[in-house]
C-alpha cells in the first residue's frame, strides 16, 4: 500500500511539475475560480515587494495574507514551486494515514456493535469488510492528488494549498488522538482564515470518542476535555496573533485579514455566493446581510453536533463542506479538500438519490466557469449574470452533494438498527421516508 502511495505521489508531482513549466501556469494563476483576493500568489509577491519598499503591506488593500505567511515566503520565495508541491504531498500523506487510522476505528466500532447485538439480523449486506475498506486510504490520497481542482490550485500557487495542508494535519492529529497537536494546527488554520474555528466541535467529539469519554454535558470528564482543548486552542491562537504583532510591530494586519474576511469589501467574482449578492445589495441592508451570511457558515455546527455526536468524522466532512460552500471567498481548493473525503463513504453508494444529477451539475458548471468568464470579460458578449448563474448552479450542486451523502449516512444508520427488509404493521413491504 505504501508503494502505491509513493507511486501516486510521484505521478502527482510529475503532473504538477509539467504544468509549472508550461505556459498554462500564468493563465491558471489569474483564474478567479482558483485564486481569490485572500490567497492569490500575485498578491503575496506584491506584499513582499511592498515590504521591500518599506511600506507596510497592510496599508493598502491588495495584501490580505497573515504575517506568518508573508515571512514564510520572504525566506522561501525562490523555492515557491517546491513548497507548493510539498504541501500537496503532505496533505495527501496526512489524509492517507488519517483514513487508515479511521478505518481501524470503524472496524472496532462495528465489532463492538456486533458484540452487543445492536444491529438487526438481516443487515449483512451493509456490514463493512476489510476487503472493501483496504483501498480507501489510497483512494483518499488519489482523490486529493489527482483532483483537477487540487492540481489547478497547486499550479496557481494559491495559499489555499497551505491551508489545506494545515487542515489535513489537523485531521490526522485528531484521528490519532493527540489533543495538543490538533489544537495547534486548528489554531494555525483559524489564524489563516477564520472559518476553521467551526471544526472545533467535530474535533472535540472525535477526541472524546477516541479517549472513551461519554459525550454528556453533565459529565465532568467531558467538560475537562472540552476545557483543556479550548484552552490549548485559544492559547495557540493568541500566541500566533501576538507573534504576528511582533513581526510587523502593528496590529494593522487584523483589519486587513479578519476584517476583510468578515466584512467582504472586495467584490471580485469567485465561485461563491457573496460577490454578486453584495454587488447588487442596497447600501442600507448591507451590514444586515453580511451578518446573516457570516452567521450562516457557523449556524449548522450546533445542530450537526447534536445529530452526529456519535459520528464525528462525518461531522468533520459536512462541516468542511459547509465552510467551503458558504465562506466569503471560496475557491476550488476548498472544494477539493472535502471532496477528498468522499472515498471514505463509498459504502453509502446504494442510498444516494441524486448522485447522477449532482455529478452532472458539478462537472458542467466547472467547465462553463471559464467559458462564461471569457464571454463576459474578454468577448463582451455576455454579462455578469451568466457567470453568476453558473455560480448558483455550482453551489446548488455542492449543497445537493453534501445533503445527499448526509441522507445516505443517516439512512444506513437507521437500517443498521432497524433492518433492511422492513415490514409495515400489516405484513406488507414498507417504505421508509424522512418525516
Amino acid at each position, binding site marked *: 500500500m505504501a508503494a502505491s502511495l509513493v507511486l501516486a505521489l510521484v505521478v502527482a508531482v510529475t503532473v504538477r511539475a509539467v504544468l509549472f513549466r508550461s505556459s498554462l501556469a500564468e493563465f491558471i494563476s489569474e483564474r478567479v475560480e482558483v485564486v481569490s483576493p485572500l490567497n492569490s500568489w500575485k498578491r503575496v*509577491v*506584491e506584499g513582499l515587494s511592498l515590504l521591500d519598499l518599506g511600506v507596510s503591506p497592510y496599508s493598502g*488593500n491588495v495584501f490580505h495574507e497573515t504575517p506568518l505567511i508573508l515571512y514564510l515566503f520572504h525566506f522561501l520565495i525562490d523555492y515557491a514551486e517546491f513548497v507548493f508541491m510539498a504541501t500537496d504531498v503532505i496533505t495527501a500523506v496526512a489524509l492517507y494515514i488519517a483514513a487508515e487510522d479511521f478505518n481501524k476505528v470503524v472496524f472496532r466500532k462495528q465489532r463492538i456493535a456486533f458484540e452487543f447485538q445492536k444491529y438487526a439480523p438481516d443487515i449483512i449486506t451493509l456490514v463493512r469488510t476489510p476487503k472493501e475498506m483496504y483501498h480507501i486510504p489510497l483512494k483518499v490520497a488519489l482523490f486529493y492528488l489527482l483532483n483537477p481542482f487540487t492540481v489547478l490550485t497547486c499550479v496557481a500557487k494559491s495559499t489555499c494549498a497551505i491551508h489545506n495542508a494545515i487542515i489535513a494535519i489537523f485531521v490526522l492529529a485528531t484521528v490519532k488522538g493527540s489533543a495538543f497537536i490538533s489544537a495547534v494546527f486548528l489554531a494555525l488554520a483559524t489564524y489563516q482564515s477564520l472559518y476553521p474555528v467551526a471544526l472545533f466541535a467535530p474535533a472535540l467529539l472525535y477526541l472524546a470518542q477516541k479517549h472513551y469519554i461519554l459525550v454528556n454535558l453533565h459529565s465532568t470528564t467531558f467538560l475537562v476535555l472540552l476545557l483543556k482543548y479550548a484552552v490549548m486552542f485559544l492559547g495557540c491562537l493568541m500566541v500566533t496573533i501576538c507573534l504576528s504583532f511582533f513581526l510587523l510591530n502593528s496590529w494593522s494586519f487584523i483589519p486587513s485579514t479578519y476584517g476583510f474576511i468578515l466584512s467582504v469589501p472586495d467584490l471580485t467574482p469567485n465561485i461563491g455566493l457573496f460577490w*454578486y449578492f453584495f*454587488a447588487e445589495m*442596497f447600501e442600507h441592508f448591507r451590514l444586515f446581510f453580511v451578518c446573516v451570511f457570516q452567521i450562516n457558515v457557523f449556524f449548522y455546527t450546533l445542530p450537526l453536533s447534536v445529530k452526529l455526536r456519535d459520528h464525528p468524522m462525518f461531522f468533520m466532512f459536512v462541516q468542511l463542506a*459547509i465552510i467551503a460552500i458558504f465562506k466569503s471567498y471560496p475557491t476550488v481548493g476548498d472544494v477539493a479538500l472535502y471532496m477528498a473525503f468522499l472515498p471514505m463513504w463509498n459504502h453509502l453508494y446504494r442510498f444516494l438519490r441524486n448522485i447522477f444529477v449532482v455529478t452532472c451539475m458539478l462537472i458542467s458548471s466547472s467547465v462553463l466557469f471559464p467559458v462564461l468568464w471569457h464571454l463576459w470579460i474578454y468577448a463582451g458578449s455576455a454579462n455578469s449574470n451568466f457567470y453568476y448563474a453558473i455560480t448558483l448552479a455550482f453551489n446548488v450542486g455542492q449543497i445537493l452533494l453534501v445533503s445527499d451523502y*448526509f441522507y445516505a449516512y443517516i439512512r444506513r444508520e437507521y437500517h443498521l438498527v432497524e433492518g433492511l427488509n422492513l415490514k409495515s404493521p400489516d405484513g406488507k413491504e414498507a*417504505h421508509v421516508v424522512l*418525516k
Partner: protein
Amino acid sequence: MDSERWMLSVVGDGFRMMDAVNRAMDSVSRGQWILSNGCCQSGSLDFERRMLVDTAWKELTNVLSGLFCASLNFIDSTNTVTPTASFKPLGIINEMDHKFLRYAALPREIVCTENLTPWKKLLPCGSKAGLAVLLKAERLFHTSYHSQAVHVRPVCRNELCTNTSWELTQSLSVVFDLYSSGSGKREWSLFKMFSRTLTEVCPLASQSTIYVDITDKDKVNDTYELIPPAPVVLNTTVHGKWRSYAVYNLLNPQLYSASSHSLNIALKWKLSKPLVTPEVPVFYAERYVSGFGLQSGKINTLIYNNHPCRAFPVLLMEIVPWYLRLYVHTLTITAKGKENKPSYIHYQPAKDRECPHLLEMLIQLPAKSVTKIGIEFERALLKWTEYPPDPNHGFYVSSSVLSALVPSSVNMEINSTKLSPLSTKLFPTIDSSIYFVRLYTEALLVNLPTPDFSMPYNVICLTCTVVAVGYGSFYNLLTRTFQIVEPSGGVAKRIANMIRRLRGVPPI
C-alpha cells in the same frame, strides 16, 4: 481647468512659453488646487493638525466649487493625495512639511462658460475694460485648447519683507487654430481671434502689455508684417532658448488708432513660406493604457528626452483611483533597452473607497532617449451604486504630473536688465542654464466590468433561494427521522421500485 488634448510633439513648445508654472494637457478639464498651509508653525505633525488641514481642504474645495461654478465639491478623500516631493510651495512660505499639502484632480469634469464668467469677475475691471474685453465665451470655446487657472501665493510687500500680502494670479491659455478653422489665409489678428478689439485700458491696472513672439522673423527676407509695428522689442530666454518679443504697452495712448480709439494687432505673412514643422520640445511625455479585456491592464508612460547630450532627472507623480488595483512589483522602467531604477520612490497604496494610489518616482532620463514606465493593474468590480451614469463610458484616471529641471540646449548668460513683475512672471529665469517644466499627461479612460443594474431584486431572491436550499436540506435531515409508511401507488414509483429491486436497493 483645461480642455482638449494637446500633443506637444505635434505643436511644439511655442504656446508653453507663456507659462512656466502650470500647464495641463488633459483631455478633460480638472481642477487642481494646491494648498500650502504656511501659517502653521513648524513642529511635529500630529493627528489634530492633519485633521485641521483636511477640514481646511474640504472647506477650500467647497468654497472654490461655489465660486467658480465648478463641481470641485466632488473632491474628497477618494481623489485627494498628499504628494511628498512633486510640489514646492509658491511664494514666501516657512512651512516645508509636505504633510500639509493636498492635491486632487477631477478628470471627468469639463470647463465651460459657467467657469469663465466667475473667473472674469475676479478681475478688477471685470470684462469691461483692459485685456479682458477680448475674452468672449463663444470665441474662446471654439478653440483647440482652453485652460484657465488661478494661483494664490504670499509675497513680500516691501524689500525688507516685514509684511506679506497675497498675490492672485489668473492665467488663461487658449490655442487658436486659425489656419484650418479660418479662411485659409495665413494671418491672424485680435479681431479675427476674439471678434473684438482693444478699446481702453483698465484704469486700475498699473501695467497692461501685449507680447508677440517674433523670434522667427527673418529680418532680411521680411517674411511677415506686424501691424502696428512693434514699438519695443524684448529679447529674453524662455525654456532655454533666446526669444524676441514685440512689446505693446497698452497704457501708451499713441498705440490706439485716433478714429475708433481701438487697437487691433495683426500679423500677415507676406511670402508663401513653406510650413515648417515646429521644433520637437526637449522634454515631453505620453501615457496610454494597454491590455485587453476587463480583468487587467497596464498603464504605460513614455517620457521623451530630446536633449542631445545632457541627461536630467524627472519626478513622476501618478495618481490612480483605488478601483484600478496597481501591482507595484510589476513596475518596469526601461530606457534604451536597459532597466532604469528610480533613485527615489514613494508609493502609497490605495485603500478601497478611501484614498487613491500615489506613486512618486525620481527617474534619470538618459540623453536622446525614450523612457518607458509600465505598471499593471487589476480592475475591480464595484457596488452597483458606485457606478456613474453611463457606466460603460468608463472611468477616468487623472493625468500624471512630471516635474523636471531641464537643461538648456544653448549655453547663455543671465540677462541682467531689471525686468518688470509681469515680465518676471511670464519669463522666470532661475538660472539660464536650466528651466523648470511641469508636464501633465493625458487623462486615461478605463472600462470596468459592470454588474447588471436591473437585477438587484432578482439577485437577492436567487442567492437567498440557494442559501434556503442548503438550509432546507439540512433542516430536514437534522430534525426529521425515518418512519415506515405504506407504499403508495403511481406508475413512476412502481417502475422506480422495480429498478431499485433489480439493483438490490430498498424500495422508495
